[in-house]
């Protein structure tokens, strides 16, 4: 009887330990996408060429997908496109400062302000933007004329991202 009690105690302890571990995992905060981007910045990025027009001809970049190596113009603004199905908070990370010029929802320009360097790897990702894509539909990111021919960028979901403003 005593042995069976001990056995039950062991099983109970193991179960509690297991549940506690499960509980920890359940409460764990998602990793900051700005930190994860510091690993991805070593990837070359999927090559695309930004469009000279702000319309469906602009190549789509997907949230949470791989990074992109975007070919831009030395003379004119160019555009990439983001399709959003619902209210979305995203993080746009860029390897070159001053490359991103504006954000549009359809024909309307939206507020856009640099949130500064990625605090986890400021040298590799010197600029990022917190994008509040509230309305479903098509957004366009304008890339200004650039002295560098190619810009690396990554669009992540913003869940888990926090920094002091």
């Amino acid at each position: 009887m005593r042995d069976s009690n001990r056995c039950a105690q062991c099983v109970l302890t193991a179960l509690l330990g297991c549940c506690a571990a499960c509980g920890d995992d359940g409460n764990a905060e998602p990793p900051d996408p700005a930190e994860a981007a510091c690993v991805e910045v070593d990837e070359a990025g999927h090559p695309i060429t930004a469009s000279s027009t702000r319309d469906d001809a602009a190549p789509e970049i997907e949230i949470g997908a791989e990074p992109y190596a975007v070919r831009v113009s030395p003379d004119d603004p160019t555009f990439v496109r983001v399709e959003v199905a619902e209210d979305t908070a995203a993080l746009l990370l860029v390897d070159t400062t001053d490359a991103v010029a504006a954000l549009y929802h359809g024909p309307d320009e939206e507020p856009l302000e640099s949130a500064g360097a990625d605090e986890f790897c400021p040298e590799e990702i010197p600029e990022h933007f917190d994008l509040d894509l509230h309305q479903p539909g098509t957004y366009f990111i304008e890339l200004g004329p650039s002295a560098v021919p190619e810009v690396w960028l990554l669009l992540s979901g913003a869940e888990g991202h926090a920094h002091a403003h």
Partner: protein
Amino acid sequence: MRRALLPLLLCLAGCTLEPGQGFATLERGELRAELARGGARDLGDDAVLTDLGYHVRLARARVHVGSFTLLELLGSTAAESSSFDPAHPPAGYTLCHGGHCHAEDGSLHSYEEVQAALAGGSVSFEPVVSMEVGRGLDLLRAASAPLDGFAPSAELPRSTIDRAELQLERLEIEATVSEGELEQPVELALDLPLSERLSQTLGRSIDRDGKATLRPRARLRVPATLFDGLDFAGLAAEASIAIEEGSESAGVLIESLLGSGLEVTL
């Protein structure tokens, strides 16, 4: 007994009459100003690319700074206004940056005005200490100026430094502009008086638990996008471009200048 007490009383009176030592003491610091290089607009050799495809090769770029001030937010409902976050503009404003917010009607309001409005107009930023700068800083050479001459005193009272503020007085530019819609290079010269302020939120407590001495350091980084939005071909007359005070172009330039980064440490 009275004779014994008299020196003690005089001593205590003397102590209270002496200038009091603050909760922290400021030491001589430094303000540095520079053109932010290295990004997508950097053409090298002090030249920048604008959003309209112009090349602006700078021969002179100076910003004149009047003063650097540390301020405290005072008022009965400071807690309400402290919820103000420029990254998330309050209702009625579309964008907050560089110390000011753009209202939906197109007007500009300083952070102070926005915070005061949020708190029902009952709060204000009051200077704790100010440092006279009074000189032009060469942006091309990352020039620096000392931060000293503390007024009213280098001894700081118990307070919270909520904000640092840089008073801008003038912007001087001499450059050659080419490319874009220009058929030939033209000279750009401007000397714009300014009354704008750049600010950074700090939230630094000054008390006995903090450092006894503080050295203010400020770094002003003027963006390489300074000339964005200016259609130089439309502004050029013969072989030169003049941007006059109060003109629309001056407004565009000042707006870009207000996008400068200000980093302050104490």
